[in-house]
């Protein structure tokens, strides 16, 4: 069953923090959560966002040249 959320997978916690600050500063709700096991065996965190914000999130990330691995729907 699909949810309202998507996660942004990143290289490191530092990258996640950078995205969290960027999104929060633009009023976009997000939360750092452990990476779901089915998406990656990484032990770190990823950034969970609402699916409806994805387009805005993508353009912000592009505009600020933040490197991400992928955005995955939950």
């Amino acid at each position, binding site marked *: 069953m699909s949810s309202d959320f998507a996660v942004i997978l990143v290289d490191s*916690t*530092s990258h996640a923090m950078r995205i969290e600050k960027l999104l929060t500063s633009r009023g976009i709700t997000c939360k750092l959560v*452990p*990476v779901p096991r089915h998406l990656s*065996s*990484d032990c770190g*965190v990823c950034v969970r966002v609402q699916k409806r914000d994805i387009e805005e999130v993508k353009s912000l990330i592009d505009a600020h040249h933040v*490197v991400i691995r992928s955005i995955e729907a939950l």
Partner: protein
Amino acid sequence: MTSSLGVVETGLVYLDNAATSWPKPPGVAAAMQYFLDEIGANPGRSGHRLSVESGRIVYETREAIACLFGASDPLRVIFGMNATDGINLVLHGILKPGDHVVTSSMEHNAVMRPLHDLEMRGVEVSQVACNPDGSLDPALVRKAICTNTKLIVLNHASNVCGTILPIREVGQIARHHDLLFLVDAAQSAGTVPIHMVMDCIDFLAFTGHKSLYGPMGTGGVVIGERVDPSALHPLRQGGTGSRSEHEVQPEFFPDRCESGTPNAVGLAGLLAALQWLQRQGSVQLRTHEMALCADLLEGLLNIRGVIVYGPLDTNKRTATVGFNIQGMEPSIVGLRLDEEYGILCRVGLHCAPSAHRTLGTFPDGCVRFAIGAFNTERDIEKALKAVSELAKEVR
């Protein structure tokens, strides 16, 4: 009783700020205690709320450091123990046998010792001679560049006599010749303006415990945009909390160069210190320190038998002053200042034998008074009175 900056006075005169600044600004100890009591978790290793909060503090500190030095990407702030850690990472991570590196005669052993080790392993080292006041002619750096030169490494401000070296001019020379440029900012970061882009710096080694007013065990290196992570071999490899499924070291900054649990409690303190620094203003702090430094220099020059090293122009130096009392060993001066006057300073060679050779003070060294943000005019008066009394004895 409190000083104008709100720090409890001890009755001692602390003039050893070039070794470690003390006291620390209000808020530093509290931030560290709060971290230990209320957060405590491992930054970036787990996904729970305390781990995330811990990681956030480390990240905020990266941002504050990047902002202070004009670096655009906080992920290129690599944390380690101190400036020595940052310098070692760059020198050992960049230089290979057959490479040539240019440095100055005013360097600290943090640069000289790794370079000596690398020289034994086939790296060529040219040391450009500085003037007797510690200053450097950038043209001599240009002349030392060879076809196999890879890196220029330069001290920003002398830990012995406070001389500021022309990093922007040398940075432009490095950029013109397409060389990498490493600056050792241990003695300048926080009080002398530094801008990674405008000063053409590729690597800026900094420490948290001196003029950034944070705790010991914090520091590292800021890496410029021109450096590809693959070009810098990490000194340490290990767990980073990222890419855990792979047994090869991550190729991205900062994780590539930051293995093992960091000093998050120290970084919490450093963050509070950086926030204090921003509130005070680096310009205001430097103005305060240099006004005291001018009084100190003038007073020392008026004492018969005292020799002062380094430039007298306060625009060309930091508030670290090296001097000697003719006829009295620096070690005796230091001991008597401590025991009889409660004045705390550092004497000897200050881990910089080459700098002392340049100044003509090797092997005896000198006495060093290093002024910090919390020193007062009264401190300088007491120090001058003490030096004057000691100098009278040997006349």
